[in-house]
């Protein structure tokens, strides 16, 4: 009789013990994970081609999953008051600044002097520069481009990662060459598309200061059957070198209206507002 | 009706193939309208033969014809009903669904089927449980259903594998009655069994198989008659004669003043009677002892 009474107490007790064990372990493991850098997980990802074949016919889904990961990774690591990890990101930023004190940032606008393609003076306006070149998040999202590269290799027709990496990430980090490479890849994989050459035109004009390539890309954009009318006007304006301030505003407005992505839309709208000041 | 010619079935199994012969050079012919009992010990080759007839397995050698058609053709089985030794049925179906399915496999038109199912279920006493799923059926019920499905296409040839196993005495009686009823309708019945008493009651012809060989075959009566008959002679005789009688007939049994002597044949009967009368005995009875099937069977087995 006594034995069964003890048993009635022991079984629930043991169960509770195990539950507490799991719970404590979970909480502590979470803390450890948070402190660790998330980058490590991404380093071990195989390259795009391998992932493509490993998808066994489910490339779209694998690309989507990686894409979601990219966005989350980006969101987690940028300096933005809305970011719940803001404090941690700020910490990282400080540590990074310490280690890179003596390095020269190649893409800062000080290096932009006259370009061989006779770019208009307007492009070098300091206010404009400060709007377009926001290097706040530089070094915080080093794996974003490798991730986006993989996404676009697995699903080359998935348009938005190209634009995200080519425009949005560019504006937050200033990695011009990587952005251009990604957009060029997108153009190659989607020759019928108008949006990517449109963005390329923007980047070539206002970041790379290469008028020739900007015009070439806009012409490519126009050739596409789905291209909206305002692009033609934009091309004309650039070619005739009329009112570049307006050109920029038109360009940006074009992006704001044509893109369906909320993130980019908001970003461009904010930029436009700052321009008007 | 059914003709088996030189049926041989060998199995080779194991990594280094070892050949086992299940049936060897079996020749058999069943006439229309007869009830044939196929008898043998377990593992003698009865089930193998039946499986070969029904194209469940293919013979290593030999051919089989059902109603003149080669048994490998599907037409051969159109008028054949089969009762397996175990009820291997889909347990997710109800009895009605199962019989319907079976009937459709025989190519029966849908219009005929419902009536047929109803009458068959009544015949085997399952009409009340027609809508139960088979997984809920008892062993006896499944056995009866098995019989119903064997009759659904109004077969000319019925092949039954150990049909009486597991039936209670009442069931066996009902079964025998149905078989005899079918016999009256000129149906051919081929069944295997090791319950010899039942075979004795219903079979016209009997075949005995042992270790794959058909060792004996013939009409039941002939089989039983051609065997040596024992005769039991009972005499009343004075006990003083006993020692001498014992020398002459060593298998003598005596009790009180009665003596029982078994003689191997009718011929000897007269001799013994004369002998005993000479010694002053009185004849009480002479009983010829016909061997029953079981004894024949055991003898055949021992012989081979």
């Amino acid at each position, binding site marked *: 009789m006594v034995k069964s009474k003890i048993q009635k107490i022991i079984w629930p007790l043991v169960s509770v013990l195990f539950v507490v064990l799991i719970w404590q372990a979970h909480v502590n493991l979470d803390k450890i994970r948070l402190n660790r850098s998330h980058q490590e997980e991404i380093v071990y990802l195989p390259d795009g081609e391998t992932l493509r*074949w490993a998808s*066994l*016919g*489910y*490339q*779209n*889904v694998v*690309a*989507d999953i990686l894409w*979601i990961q990219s966005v989350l990774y980006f969101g987690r690591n940028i300096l933005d008051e809305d970011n719940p990890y803001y404090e941690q990101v700020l910490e990282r930023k400080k540590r990074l600044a310490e280690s890179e004190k003596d390095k020269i940032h190649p893409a800062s606008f000080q290096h932009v002097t006259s370009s061989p393609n006779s770019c208009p003076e307007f492009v070098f306006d300091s206010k404009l520069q400060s709007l377009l070149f926001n290097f706040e998040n530089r070094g915080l999202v080093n794996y974003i481009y490798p991730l986006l590269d993989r996404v676009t290799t697995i*699903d080359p*027709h*998935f*348009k*938005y990662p190209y634009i995200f990496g080519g425009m949005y990430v560019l504006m937050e980090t200033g990695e011009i060459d990587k952005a251009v490479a990604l957009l060029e890849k997108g153009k190659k994989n989607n020759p019928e598309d108008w949006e990517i050459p449109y963005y390329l035109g923007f980047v070539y004009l206002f970041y790379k200061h290469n008028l020739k390539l900007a015009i070439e890309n806009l012409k490519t954009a126009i050739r596409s059957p789905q291209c909206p009318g305002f692009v033609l006007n934009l091309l004309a304006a650039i070619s005739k070198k009329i009112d570049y301030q307006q050109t920029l505003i038109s360009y940006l407005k074009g992006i704001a209206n044509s893109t*369906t*992505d*909320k993130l980019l839309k908001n970003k461009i709208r904010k930029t436009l507002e700052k321009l008007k000041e | 009706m059914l003709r088996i010619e030189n049926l041989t079935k060998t199995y080779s199994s194991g990594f280094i193939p070892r050949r086992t012969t299940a049936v060897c050079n079996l020749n058999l012919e069943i006439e229309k309208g007869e009830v044939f009992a196929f008898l043998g010990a377990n593992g003698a080759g009865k089930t193998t033969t039946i*499986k070969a007839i*029904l*194209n*469940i*397995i*293919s013979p290593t050698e030999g051919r089989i014809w059902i109603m003149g058609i080669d048994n490998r053709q*599907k*037409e*051969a*089985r*159109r008028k*054949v009903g*089969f009762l*397996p030794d*175990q009820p*291997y*049925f*889909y347990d*997710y*179906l109800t009895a009605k669904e199962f019989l319907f*399915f*079976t009937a*459709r*496999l*025989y*190519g029966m038109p849908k219009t005929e089927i419902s009536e047929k199912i109803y009458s068959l279920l009544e015949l085997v006493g399952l009409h009340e449980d027609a809508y139960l799923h088979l997984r809920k059926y008892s062993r006896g019920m499944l056995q009866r259903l098995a019989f119903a*499905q064997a009759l659904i296409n109004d077969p000319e040839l019925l092949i039954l594998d150990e049909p009486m196993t597991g039936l209670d005495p009442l069931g066996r009686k009902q079964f025998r009655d149905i078989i005899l009823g079918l016999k009256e309708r000129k149906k051919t019945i081929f069944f295997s069994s090791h319950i010899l008493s039942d075979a004795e009651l219903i079979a016209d012809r009997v075949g005995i198989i042992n270790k794959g060989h058909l060792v004996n075959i013939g009409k039941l009566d002939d089989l039983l008659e051609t065997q040596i008959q024992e005769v039991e002679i009972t005499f009343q005789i004075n006990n003083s004669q006993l020692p001498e009688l014992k020398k002459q007939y060593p298998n003598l049994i005596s009790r009180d003043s009665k003596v029982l002597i078994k003689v191997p044949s009718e011929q000897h009967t007269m001799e013994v009677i004369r002998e005993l009368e000479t010694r002053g005995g009185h004849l009480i009875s002479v009983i010829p002892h016909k061997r029953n099937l079981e004894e024949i069977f055991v003898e055949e087995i021992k012989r081979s």
Partner: protein
Amino acid sequence: MKSFVIAANTFRETIRNRIMYNILFFAIFVIGVSLLVSDWSIHQQAKILKDFGLAAMSIFGLLIAIFIGIRLIYQEIEKRTIYMLVTKPIARWEIIVGKYLGLILTIAVNVLVMSLCLFAVDYLLEGFVNWELTPAILLIYVEIMVVIALATFFSTFTSPMISALLTICLFVVGHLSPILKLFLHTHTNTIFKLILQGIYYAVPNLEYFNIRTAVVESLPLPHHFLFYALFYGIGYVGILLLISSFIFRRKDLK
């Protein structure tokens, strides 16, 4: 034809199988996914919904196909219920074809319900029904048909475990077919090349049934692609059922 009798019975058997509740999980999954990315742009939400929806349809369909397909013939033989089929005036090939037809009919119902579910959630999201997905769904179904034929083929002579393994292996190889082709060009060893060539031509190229990217991104499909893919699938199903019937015809049932 007798096969239809068996098909109807197999349909009855498989549709009652509890694994059919997968449709429920599919519905929950699809709705869940769409809710997960509800903060994003409608265009992206739609893309992710369609991608995940079609992939889930394919995976669930294939899993059921394999799970039930490998037991299709094997179970009949093990449980001896096959006696009730083989002893009837019906050819062995009719049994194989009948069981196959029954199962693909069940899967068809499954895929249909999942499609309706996907269309419904997509409609709620985008405001219109995306009928363009239909060719992709059709080819998902054809791929499943081929995989079931593979599973049925293995089921005629080997145990479920090995059948499942072999079927999955062939599924993987089938999707890696384009890489095989690449290897063919790079390897010089003739014997190895011959083997690879053999595998490349023998194993069905399952990538031909994958037009999900094209459909979701609204890219144009080459002319007659759908028909050729259909013929390809039906061709393989035919060959596999033929070989299965041949094996089954000669088989001694215990």
